[in-house]
């Protein structure tokens, strides 16, 4: 850590830990409901649990992205945040809006639109809050001593994420138009601009963790995000097959979305190659594991499992079944949850000044949560494929099929328990690090790393390990 104002990132990361834990609780509520034990129905009916589960997910990921930006951008721009106090205010506002939204869901204060359940008045507050964040980051870069590709890609991703929140607020009476705009948010986020954020954070982590030449890392960053937009923008069409939109989307959406895995493949190869070739052995191996894991699992969850149901002929039968939930879990986990956990694993020792990243709990967290998530995906895959065959192909009644697949939800619950154990260890490790009292660079007498391959252009030499 080089700058005082980077400290605010810790508050965002702590918020992530809290919201993530709550998200998991609501996941279990739904898992038990699917397994035939909807015991909390009177207090937390399924639709409340679902809105809470998914919105907490989006909130903690956004909080993680913001924390990451507050941590990364000062270092990249070589200056303090432009308005350090605003960052704290913006954090507090985010927490207040988030908590209000989640409490509101329990009293039916929502818009019944998947992933965009936050009611309209709070939407405006979200926009104001995100604007404050983006402007602060933007000013820091603008007034900084240098503008790096990593920070501009990150900034562009964050800015576009904010802009793309707006189409979700276009009023319409037609359910098809409603859906049409909803995908501008949901799809263009996860398969578009969030990938820029992902690329930016990954490239920062790879430069810091491996000492690889910045020019090379950033060149490939452009290629990957180029592939993302080339396939992802028109790939939105894979949500326009069957919602009352013209037939040509079957062709356009099918072709372009089938290319989307390329971007994720690029991301995975990028992480693996750089991690192997990088000249420097950074002591924080856990952060590197999460970084490379993010590249790999995002390819499996988003690229491979997304491809599995993106062809129109397949999607005709899998559309709106548990197959989608299977893909949704692993894609969000691999691409964005692991990304946030990677930057937290990297930043926490620097922010707190305590280097506990090599504790057994940290390694345990990585493996257990990933094995747990793979098992969850398998359980949902079996349930999903069975549902597709029995309900969509054979024509059995919905509820009869659900009874057939109930037992797979016990499998899901067991896998989720393993996953939760891993996340518990992660959070424990985070808590042990304590408050963000780390000293600024050099203060701790941490040995400066020798760089094997001295990159001509980069700051890698100037910046010590953390």
């Amino acid at each position, binding site marked *: 850590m080089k700058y005082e104002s980077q400290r605010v990132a810790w508050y965002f990361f702590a918020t992530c830990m809290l919201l993530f834990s709550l998200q998991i609780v609501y996941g279990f509520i739904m898992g038990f409901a699917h397994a035939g034990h909807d015991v909390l129905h009177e207090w937390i009916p399924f639709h409340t649990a679902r809105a809470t589960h998914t919105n907490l997910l989006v909130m903690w990921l956004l909080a993680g992205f913001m924390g990451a930006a507050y941590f990364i951008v000062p270092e990249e721009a070589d200056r303090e945040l432009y308005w350090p106090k605003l960052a704290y205010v913006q954090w507090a506002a985010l927490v207040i809006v988030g908590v209000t939204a989640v409490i509101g869901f329990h009293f039916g204060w929502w818009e*019944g639109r998947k992933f965009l359940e936050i009611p309209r008045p709070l939407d405006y507050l979200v926009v104001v809050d995100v604007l404050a964040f983006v402007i602060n980051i933007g000013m820091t870069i603008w007034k900084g001593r240098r503008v790096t590709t990593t920070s501009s890609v990150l900034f562009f991703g964050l800015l576009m994420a904010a802009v793309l929140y707006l189409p979700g607020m276009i009023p319409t009476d037609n359910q098809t138009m409603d859906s049409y705009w909803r995908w501008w948010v949901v799809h263009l986020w996860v398969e578009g601009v969030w990938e820029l954020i992902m690329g930016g954070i990954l490239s920062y982590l790879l430069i810091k963790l491996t000492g690889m030449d910045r020019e090379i890392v950033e060149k490939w960053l452009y290629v990957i995000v180029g592939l993302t937009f080339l396939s992802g923008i028109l790939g939105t069409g894979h949500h326009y097959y069957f919602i009352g939109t013209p037939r040509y989307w079957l062709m356009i959406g099918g072709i372009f979305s089938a290319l989307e895995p390329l971007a994720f493949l690029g991301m995975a190869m990028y992480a693996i190659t750089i991690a192997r070739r990088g000249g420097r052995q950074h002591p924080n191996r856990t952060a590197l594991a999460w970084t490379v894991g993010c590249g790999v699992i995002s390819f499996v969850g988003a690229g491979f499992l997304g491809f599995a149901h993106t062809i129109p002929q397949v999607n005709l039968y899998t559309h709106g079944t548990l197959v989608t939930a299977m893909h949704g879990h692993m894609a969000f986990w691999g691409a964005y949850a692991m990304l946030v956990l990677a930057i937290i694993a990297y930043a926490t020792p620097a922010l707190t000044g305590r280097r506990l990243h090599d504790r057994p709990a940290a390694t345990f967290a990585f493996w257990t949560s990933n094995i747990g998530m793979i098992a969850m995906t398998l359980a949902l895959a079996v349930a999903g494929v069975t549902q597709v065959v029995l309900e969509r192909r054979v024509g059995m009644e919905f509820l009869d099929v659900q009874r057939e697949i109930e037992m797979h939800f016990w499998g899901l619950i067991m896998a989720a328990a393993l996953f939760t154990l891993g996340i518990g260890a992660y959070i424990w490790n985070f808590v042990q690090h304590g408050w963000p009292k780390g000293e600024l660079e050099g203060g701790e007498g941490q040995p400066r790393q020798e760089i094997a391959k001295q990159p001509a252009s980069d700051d890698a030499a100037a910046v010590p390990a953390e």
Partner: protein
Amino acid sequence: MLSKSAARAFFVGGTALCSLAFIGLTVDTIGRIPAQTHEENLTPAVIRGKNLWDESNCMGCHTLLGEGAYYAPELTRVYERRGPEFIAAMLRDPAAMYPGARRMEQYDFTDEEIADLVAFLAWVNEMDLNGFPAPPTLASAAAPSASSTSPVASGAGRPRVFEQMCVACHAIDGRGGSVGPALDGVADRVEPDFFERWLRDPAAVRPGTAMPRLPLSDAQLAELVAFLSQQHTEGAE
């Protein structure tokens, strides 16, 4: 070797081109959606129904147009599948229609609100969805008693109201729900006058029964009684 500026040009150029194409297609799509979704039938009742659909977060359990949650049945074609009376009964008291099954939310809708939601689902039912939901192609394989040579594997000759309301709970020819007993050969099991008494008020015949009293017109009732009376086991016909 690819240079960084060439990589940047690839990114900026590709993004600009695709964004333009996407915006162009969006303009075209917005022009075509009214015809494909029959926007001319978007009456005030349908719009009120859509708003109720949103406020009640039905999508938090159901899918509509294949979007939503995977806890409760797909509702895109529910109007055709179950008919307006069944849907209305469902919204009034879900537990009565599916006793002992997964719990739907018990709303306190007024009759007008129920009519609005039914109007909304009727409007969605008419949309041209490029073939979704697809007919179950393996259906005849699973129900061998339904002759695969008949033009419509299931439903041939059955009253429409039976296909909509009764199959939710009863199976026949191997297809349908499992809340009540299968109705194949039911005419062999009961007295001829049972059907009319039963359908008018099940609880009066067997107190405490799980079969609800369904909203049936006299014409529908007569049609059903005639149909059920013919349900003898094969061979006896």
